[in-house]
């Protein structure tokens, strides 16, 4: 009897079982995580039906079904009963003050899906749910049957968008016109700050500037008036385009077309139409700018910031890591010192990332950035140009953070280069550097790229060090645009990881922001996977080229 049990343990069956269970558990958790993020992150863009609930207490709500639960309530006598509750997204924040409400199911008298219930996505105040009453197009009030009015709305919205584009265009023109004047005025105000202490040279400069200001003002004025007129006309026109919307409980709301992003009537859309709507929303999410303190709209600036930062980081970290690894392996005399250095490099990988962030702040921003400001941007001081957080410093900080990973992976790559090949190159009269460049580096390239892959995975998901080196909640400009010099490394930027933190935990309207957290998390995963796939593709190509010699 005891022998079989002993054999059972000797063969290791229980341990094999344990390893299997461990694997299943880890994979299962990963799959579960991805599934939740996928469902919650992608589901939000589906245009769900609007339900109208008539309650027994004569309240009427209309909105999207959001959640349902059982709540235990007690009446004080120690008895509990379960009450079914439904959560409804009722929108209309400007009317009700909140987006969500809970309704006890037992209170519902009547539940229906009105055909012409309309969802308005607004620039401000979130969604509006209601029925279109009338369209006002420049003093012309149109009331008609539901279908006609819907199409009227659609046309008016595109007209309003045209007007908005014109406004934007006129605004940039206006800013460009005023730019030289603003520049002069800024210089004057700087000089005026220490007016009592000016040298004669500076006084002359001030007088010159003031004369110039007058001249430029005169020159600009007629154009400015003309532009202002055009802008006002446009603005007035836009203001005269509005809708009257009736909410489910009968309140009338005036909704300017200027404020509408898009609108649709989900209850009379078929699956195909909803699908199109879904794709549109998804695209808007990926390519649009954020609205309503990031809880709505798109995340394009964050995607752009993340990708650009990771690419910059890679550009910094790979050369440094590779050079360090080459020195450690090929040039440094192997001994206790190199062993200590190697150990230290390995340990650097375990330093908490916030420590790197503080180092980045202290060294890159305060020391390097401030010095650069003093030498190159002295005329703008005391306002810092490089001496404040920016994408360059954030990338450098992350490069530092991921350096150990690249060094270690490159070292492994270098060690894997066959000694015979290195000797062969030296025997042909090549110098050590020629041997490294032509034999070691190409052969170690897959290792280097493995390091890059690990660095990207680590770097793209970091948030803590970025928060103090240049990431912001909302960046007015992308770090890359069409104005010279195209790449603006001093600019602050947005980042998907920080976006998740900001939207999920810092936003004033947490409940409305939850879907955004899931979608952004999903997007971050997708971005990291795509960047990794790129590096893996490169590595595979190189591996095929340098497959090891064997016969």
């Amino acid at each position, binding site marked *: 009897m005891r022998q079989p049990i002993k054999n059972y343990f000797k063969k290791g069956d229980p341990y094999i079982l344990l390893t299997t269970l461990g694997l299943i558990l880890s994979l299962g958790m990963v799959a579960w995580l991805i599934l939740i993020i996928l469902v919650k992150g992608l589901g939000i863009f589906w245009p769900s039906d609007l339900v109208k609930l008539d309650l027994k207490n004569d309240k009427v709500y209309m909105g999207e079904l959001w959640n349902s639960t059982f709540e235990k309530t007690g009446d004080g006598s120690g008895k509990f009963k379960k009450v079914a509750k439904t959560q409804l997204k009722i929108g209309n924040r400007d009317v009700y003050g909140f987006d969500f409400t809970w309704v006890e199911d037992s209170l519902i008298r009547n539940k229906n899906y009105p055909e012409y219930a309309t969802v308005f996505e607004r620039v401000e105040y979130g969604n509006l749910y209601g029925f279109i009453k009338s369209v006002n197009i420049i003093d012309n009030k149109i009331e008609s049957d539901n279908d006609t009015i819907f199409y009227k709305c659609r046309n008016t919205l595109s007209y309003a968008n045209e007007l908005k584009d014109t406004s934007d265009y006129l605004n940039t023109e206006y800013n460009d016109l005023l730019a030289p004047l603003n520049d002069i005025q800024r210089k004057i105000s700087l000089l005026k700050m220490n007016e009592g202490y000016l040298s004669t040279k500076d006084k002359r400069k001030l007088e010159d500037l003031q004369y110039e200001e007058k001249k430029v003002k005169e020159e600009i004025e007629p154009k400015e008036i003309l532009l202002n007129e055009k802008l006002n006309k446009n603005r007035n026109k836009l203001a005269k385009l509005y809708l009257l919307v009736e909410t489910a409980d009968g309140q009338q709301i005036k909704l300017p077309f200027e404020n509408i992003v898009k609108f649709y009537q989900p209850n009379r859309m078929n699956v195909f139409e909803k699908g199109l709507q879904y794709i549109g929303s998804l695209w808007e999410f990926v390519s649009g700018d954020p609205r309503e303190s990031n809880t709505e709209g798109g995340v394009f600036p964050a995607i752009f910031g993340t990708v650009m930062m990771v690419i910059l980081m890679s550009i910094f970290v790979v050369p440094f890591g590779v050079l360090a690894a080459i020195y450690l392996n090929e040039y440094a005399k192997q001994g206790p010192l190199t062993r200590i250095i190697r150990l230290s490099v390995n340990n650097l990988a375990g330093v908490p990332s916030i420590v790197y962030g503080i180092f980045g702040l202290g060294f890159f921003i305060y020391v390097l950035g401030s010095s650069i400001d003093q030498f190159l941007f002295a005329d703008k001081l005391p306002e810092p140009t490089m001496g404040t957080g920016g994408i360059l410093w954030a990338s450098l900080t992350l490069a530092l953070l991921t350096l150990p990973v690249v060094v270690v992976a490159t070292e492994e790559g270098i060690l894997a280069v066959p000694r015979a090949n290195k*000797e*062969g190159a*030296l*025997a042909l*009269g090549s110098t050590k550097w020629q041997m490294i460049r032509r034999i070691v580096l190409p052969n170690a390239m897959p290792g280097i790229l493995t390091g890059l892959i690990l660095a990207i995975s680590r770097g793209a998901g970091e948030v803590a060090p970025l928060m103090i080196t240049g990431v912001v909640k909302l960046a007015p400009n992308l770090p890359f645009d069409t104005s010279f010099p195209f790449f603006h490394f001093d600019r602050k930027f947005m980042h998907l990881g920080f976006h998740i933190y900001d939207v999920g935990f810092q936003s004033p309207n947490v409940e409305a922001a939850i879907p955004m957290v899931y979608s952004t998390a999903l997007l971050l995963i997708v971005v990291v996977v795509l960047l990794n796939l790129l590096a893996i593709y490169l590595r595979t190509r190189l591996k095929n080229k340098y497959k*090891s*010699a*064997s*016969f």
Partner: protein
Amino acid sequence: MAVNLSGAVTNKINHLQNEKIVIETKNLNFYYTPEKAALKNINIQIPEKKVTAFIGPSGCGKSTLLRTFNRMNDLILGTSLNGEVLIDGNNIFHPEVHLEDLRKKVGMVFQKSNPFPMSIKENVIFGPQVNGESKQSVLDGILESALVQADLWREVKDRLNESALDLSGGQQQRLCIARALANKPDIILMDEPASALDPISTGKIEETIEELRNNYTVVIVTHNMQQAARVSDYTAFMMMGELIEFNDTNTLFTTPNKPLTEEYITGRFG
């Protein structure tokens, strides 16, 4: 025992008096670790444009000796050496000697073929390129002549841009010979070049050596005595880091002077 065996070996080789000597070692001692000498007091003179073979049991120091001629042993940490190695009368361990120039002049073929993971063409022109030749026409000329001399041109001339790693083992080794020849060396060192190859490939390598003997000084290490007898003009027998006997191949294999040599070539040990 060692010293009296190797006493004045070189003086007994009458044939060498008609030859021009390219490599000469004087009282060469070599240590991998300070305690134990891998080469003990080696004195040998290697004639120009002849094939000289080193034979001996494993660990006798024949490869070590070979690798001192192009200073490959410098790469191994902790080694030390005393005595002299003269090539064309110049001590190669003199501080002013350029290692790269020495290795260009003294080419080497290794035991295991080591083509670089590049195309056939890039492999062959690697040496001239790192030594500063960049003219394409010159490189093309070198490429062809080196491959012809290594008896590989016919087989690879249509796929010069394919990876060298796709060649067969024997072809790879001949590619390595071509690669060494592309540097236009005076001396070619071969460290058991055929030990990992099948008999047919071995035969081809031997044919190649046969053709090289007219233009190059070839020093070959082998533990295959038949091979030494077939390809070499002179043979040195080494044991335990000592040069036991050095003579022209015929004499050494037919009437060896030393009993140790006789025992070895008749297969009583080794």
